[in-house]
């Protein structure tokens, strides 16, 4: 006959074994969808962007880089239902002036959401509205966003915008495919996911609107997991810059400088 002491030890030990085993196996379960074959990335040729923005500033006589609307920003605003406003800067791409030295000629960096591998905005999201999709795009599920703006504070690239005003009053044209949104949510560049997801399903080469709109072909978009894609080739052959790399966010948007 088994003693009471031995019985209790056996029962506890087996329960502990089962519990540990279950806890370990939960982490391993990971369903992979079709999206896991992709990792979208973008390479921006800063020299071409600087050239283009300089030309626009000279032609239109604008001093402030924030007021410059190159074709990429104009097309992006139109396609993603970004409201026009005098009061707030809503465009999902923002142009920053960078100089090598104080007296050097300015370089213009178009900065949109950098689609980080380790995004700070997703970590802080209270409602899990912001999340990282399997293909690396950071998406805001506007059905869940409560507009707390934690993500805007967390984002090191200032890539997110808060919709202060009812957008329908500030829109000139509407793209029915993309959401119009409501005021009080946060919006960001999502690589035009409504467009690239559809084009992927149609077996076309997916391209966000800004990439198609750029007249200088300064923006290159593609799948980083495909070794034959244009972005992968450029990453292998050219030097590229990562913004604020010391933060360890590992962005999927890279900047190409100084020619090839």
């Amino acid at each position: 006959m088994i003693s009471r002491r031995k019985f209790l030890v056996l029962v506890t030990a087996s329960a502990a074994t089962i519990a540990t085993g279950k806890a370990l196996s939960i982490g391993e379960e990971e369903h992979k969808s079709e999206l896991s074959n992709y990792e979208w990335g973008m390479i921006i040729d800063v020299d071409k962007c600087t050239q283009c923005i300089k030309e626009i500033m000279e032609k239109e006589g604008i001093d402030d880089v924030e007021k410059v609307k190159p074709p990429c920003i104009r097309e992006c605003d139109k396609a993603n239902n970004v409201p026009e406003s005098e009061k707030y800067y809503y465009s999902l791409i923002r142009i920053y002036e960078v100089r090598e030295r104080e007296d050097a000629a300015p370089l213009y960096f178009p900065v949109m959401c950098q689609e980080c591998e380790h995004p700070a905005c997703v970590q802080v999201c209270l409602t899990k509205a912001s999340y990282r999709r399997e293909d690396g795009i950071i998406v805001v599920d506007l059905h869940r966003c409560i507009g707390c703006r934690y993500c805007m504070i967390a984002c090191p690239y200032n890539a997110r915008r808060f919709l202060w005003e009812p957008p329908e009053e500030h829109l000139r044209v509407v793209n029915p495919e993309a959401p119009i949104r409501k005021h009080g949510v946060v919006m960001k560049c999502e690589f035009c996911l409504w467009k690239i997801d559809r084009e992927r399903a149609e077996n076309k080469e997916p391209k966000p609107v800004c990439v198609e709109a750029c007249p200088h072909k300064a923006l290159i978009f593609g799948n980083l997991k495909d070794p034959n894609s244009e972005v992968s080739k450029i990453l292998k052959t050219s030097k590229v810059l990562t913004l604020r790399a010391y933060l360890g966010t590992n962005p999927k948007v890279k900047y190409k400088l100084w020619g090839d």
Partner: protein
Amino acid sequence: MYHKPYVILGIVAFLILLAMPYWVTAGNIKYEDIHKELAQPKGVNCIKGVKWMSSYHMELLNEWREAAVRDGIRKYPTDNGVFNVSLTECWKCHDYENYCKKCHEFMEVRPVCWDCHYNPSMEMPTVNYLNK
């Protein structure tokens, strides 16, 4: 039975109260069929069967919402063909004003979709990237 008259009176009063909808409206309750007043859709086949769609289209749209936003699925194959996972797919066949809105108003349903999504009654100029 104790207090027989009171009990019977109580039962009768209860039955009268139960039948209140009938005597308050004086028998004017009638079945209204909104189906005849709705605009006829242009296409032949809906995403699923017509009966299923009229009862469960909201569940399909919820399913689509999750699929499109979370999993990046933008094409939805059914027995009737492949459909774009988008609200724009609805008014390829259906008239918004005389079909969707009319029935929703009749049923006193107020979908929140149109707070953030475009519908044709908004009367705003559109750009279309679908056919480019």
